[in-house]
């Protein structure tokens, strides 16, 4: 307990007044959360623009784009877009916004803490992430351009340098360095999240009273701590292979365009795949777990009902987190690893469908018998459930090695991971944004524009990704810059065209969101009430936006679980976590005034 007291004491410091300490190198978890969010917002529009260019090139290859002054887009430019789209989206958006953004802002508040356990570490982790983004984006501007090896960057393609392709020189080096920096930043963040959750919970905030969002952030942080270290090591080894003449991933006797590679021998390309996917599969859950937490939180709040099976939800997330480390081999069924290990990986992967199914059952159970309020944030949370089901079920095909023989590295896989890890996770981010924006900025996002944004996005993403399953079933390999090389692809071009048009509409509708976001920061309806959604967790017991130390010198005490809705006999249909039993029973404070709930 001594360390607990010290940690609390350490944060009793006055708010900074200078611009730089307040907004740039801030130690305040709320400012850092917003910084992460803006970094992700910039990145998501960048990543989306790259996919827009890819979709244009795929179906209208003859078109002249502004950045290809010489003429049409080349295959290597397409692959550079593809690599950077995946990298930016996975790391700078899906890892950053739901965990580092919202987690940073709301985890301390939801557990009743004044700040993160290590504010300086927190600041460092953001600025390290920022540096990693700059290094990665710099890859576009070096000779040869950005790397073309995909976000998975398998060696030897990523190890041999420019000889195997443009972008594989300086661009690939910057990519590796940028990624390594990102790993370091994520480790700093993970340590901070775990320590904060374990050490800084307010009195009464037992583990089983934590909001499911907090559970999700905690489990995600543990995954990050265990996974990013491995990727960091892998990046270091790959960098050594490229620059120091080592051969971790490169075997001997290679010949590239009739030139014998004499400076490598003895390495294994598959070793990289093991290291990468040992990180890469938990990474999928790093992206989606916070979304699950947010969806659970919102489904309960806006159906005005307790979460169905709170403990089952916690255990399901814990088992997803644990099993998530045992299934990486399902990315490698056809990689040349032992086919016997495929059996184990397959069974474990089918098993991870079980906690995912439990979550879905419990979400439906939460809605069942509810009084659902259709705020924009709730629409996105409901959309999350639909997308999670659609994207999750295709995993049952890919988890079977025999079926994977046909579907591996086709558009079926692209459909699967975009629906579940891309779009479902993004829906979690949108739900969180519409829900917490008034708390963060003191103003509401416009609900009308929000609903139009939801409908266009929800229909749009299904129109983009559902047809991709059929492309994959028909044998369309992914990562093809051009559809003329393999003849059977010509019959699939109409499907590709439909997908591109759906993508243009969906991407266009994100401008509505951007406008809504920027306009509402200054012109949105003011959030004068502390608790406009009639929610129960601690962030709704403080002003919007919260004061510098969150609870204005008052340390909250927690008396109950996070989802006390529709409790029979209670004066209101929700009981905030911080109300005393007497306040909750009578709806009156000790002085006799009505509880401001």
């Amino acid at each position, binding site marked *: 307990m001594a360390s607990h007291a010290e940690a609390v004491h350490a944060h009793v410091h006055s708010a900074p007044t200078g611009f730089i300490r307040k907004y740039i190198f801030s130690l305040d978890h709320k400012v850092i959360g917003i910084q992460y969010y803006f970094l992700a917002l910039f990145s998501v529009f960048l990543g989306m623009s790259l996919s827009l260019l890819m979709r244009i090139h795929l179906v209208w290859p003859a078109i002249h784009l502004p950045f290809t002054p010489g003429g049409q887009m080349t295959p290597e430019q397409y692959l550079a877009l593809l690599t950077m789209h995946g990298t930016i989206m996975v790391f700078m958006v899906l890892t950053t916004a739901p965990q580092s953004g919202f987690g940073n802002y709301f985890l301390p508040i939801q557990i009743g803490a004044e700040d993160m356990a290590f504010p300086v570490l927190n600041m460092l982790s953001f600025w390290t992430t920022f540096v990693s983004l700059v290094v990665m984006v710099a890859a576009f501007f070096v000779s040869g351009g950005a790397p073309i090896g995909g976000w998975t960057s398998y060696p*030897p393609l990523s190890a041999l340098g420019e000889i195997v*392709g443009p972008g594989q020189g300086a661009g690939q080096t910057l990519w590796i360095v940028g990624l390594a920096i990102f790993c370091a930043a994520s480790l700093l963040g993970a340590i901070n999240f775990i320590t904060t959750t374990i050490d800084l919970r307010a009195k009464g905030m037992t583990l089983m009273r934590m909001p499911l969002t907090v559970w999700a952030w905690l489990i995600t942080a543990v995954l990050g701590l265990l996974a990013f270290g491995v990727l960091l090591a892998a990046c270091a080894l790959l960098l050594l292979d490229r620059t120091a003449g080592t051969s971790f991933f490169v075997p001997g006797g290679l010949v590239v365009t009739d030139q014998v590679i004499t400076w490598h021998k003895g390495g294994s390309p598959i070793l990289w795949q093991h290291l990468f996917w040992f990180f890469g599969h938990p990474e999928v859950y790093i992206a989606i777990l916070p979304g699950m937490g947010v969806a659970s939180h919102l489904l309960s709040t806006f159906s005005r009902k307790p979460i169905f099976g*709170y403990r*089952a939800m916690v255990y399901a997330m814990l088992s997803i987190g644990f099993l998530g480390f045992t299934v990486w081999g399902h990315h490698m069924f056809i990689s040349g690893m032992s086919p016997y290990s495929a059996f184990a990986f397959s069974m474990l992967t089918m098993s991870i469908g079980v906690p995912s*199914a439990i979550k879905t059952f419990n979400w*439906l159970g939460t809605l069942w018998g509810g009084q659902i309020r259709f705020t924009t944030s709730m629409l996105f949370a409901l959309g999350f459930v639909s997308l999670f089901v659609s994207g999750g079920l295709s995993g049952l095909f890919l988890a079977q090695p025999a079926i994977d023989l046909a579907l591996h590295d086709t558009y079926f896989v692209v459909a699967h991971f975009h629906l579940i890890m891309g779009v479902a996770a993004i829906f979690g981010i949108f739900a969180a944004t519409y829900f917490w924006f008034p708390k963060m900025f003191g103003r509401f996002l416009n609900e009308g524009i929000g609903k139009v944004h939801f*409908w266009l996005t929800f229909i749009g993403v*299904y129109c983009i990704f559902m047809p991709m399953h059929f492309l994959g079933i028909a044998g369309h390999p992914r990562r093809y810059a051009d559809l003329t090389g393999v003849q059977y692809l010509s019959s699939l071009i109409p499907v590709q065209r439909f997908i591109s048009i759906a993508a243009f509409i969906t991407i266009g509708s994100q401008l509505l969101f951007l406008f809504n976001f920027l306009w509402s920061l200054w012109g949105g309806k003011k959030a004068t009430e502390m608790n406009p959604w009639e929610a129960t967790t601690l962030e709704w017991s403080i002003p919007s936006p919260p004061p510098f130390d969150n609870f204005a010198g008052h340390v909250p005490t927690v008396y109950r679980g996070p989802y006390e809705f529709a409790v029979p006999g209670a004066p209101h*249909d929700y009981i905030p976590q911080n109300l005393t039993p007497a306040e909750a029973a009578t709806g009156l404070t000790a002085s006799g005034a009505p509880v401001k709930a």
Partner: protein
Amino acid sequence: MRKRSGCKGSTPVAAAFAVALVALTVITTYLFVVKPWWFPKSITDVGNEIDAQFMRTLWITGIIFILAQLILAWVIFRYRAHGRERASHFEGNAAMEIIWTIATVVLFVGLGLYGEDAWAKVHYQPAAAGDLQVEVTAQQFAWNFRYPGADGKFGRIKPELVSASTGNPVGLDRTDPDGKDDVVSPIIGVPVNREVELILRSQDVTHSFFVRELRLKQDAVPGMLIHIHFTPTEVGDYEIACAELCGLGHYRMRSLLRVMSQDDYDRWLKDTAANQ
């Protein structure tokens, strides 16, 4: 009474959401039933088995998909807010949790076990003796196929002899007696109804051998020799596509699998040997 965003006039939104989910379910189900874009016909017995397992999985996931989306549509419409009415209060049901946990374990793991048979046929059973061995060499951005010739032995290859520009793309050492009758071809011809064993290797980066009609895909990894086998049962030309990102020409790294009658195959191999 305070006004609450989202609880007034919930019927139109709830109805729209339910309709959207029903439409999603109907359109998706229709497409998976009508199959406007689908697998081409399989040309191996194992391929047929994989198709059967695919359909089994499709049935199970299809039923779950339809039920989940329709139940979601129903609860959204049925349990939309009515003014300030209170929701029912229950916090879970342990019996139901146990039932659906066990049910999904049995269903998902059982399905996975069922599918292992096809995988075992591809990867646990080696090719039978007397199969036709062909060595596959992948390189940026071409495939080369080598036949051992009448002696049944592959000759020595050396990296330093590789010279695609002068007609020795695999680096065959013609001074090795075993290699004198080796035949190298840019497409692979095989006789129908005979087991073919491929020995996959790569010269530079990782590639992947993919023929959709075979329902077969295998990475060709530098530094490794990887064996796979199949028995084609239908004569015809089938495209080989590279399925592992290998560089800027990945999309055009194609070749042909030509399945022929035994007579046609013998003639083709002789012509190919004569022309190399």
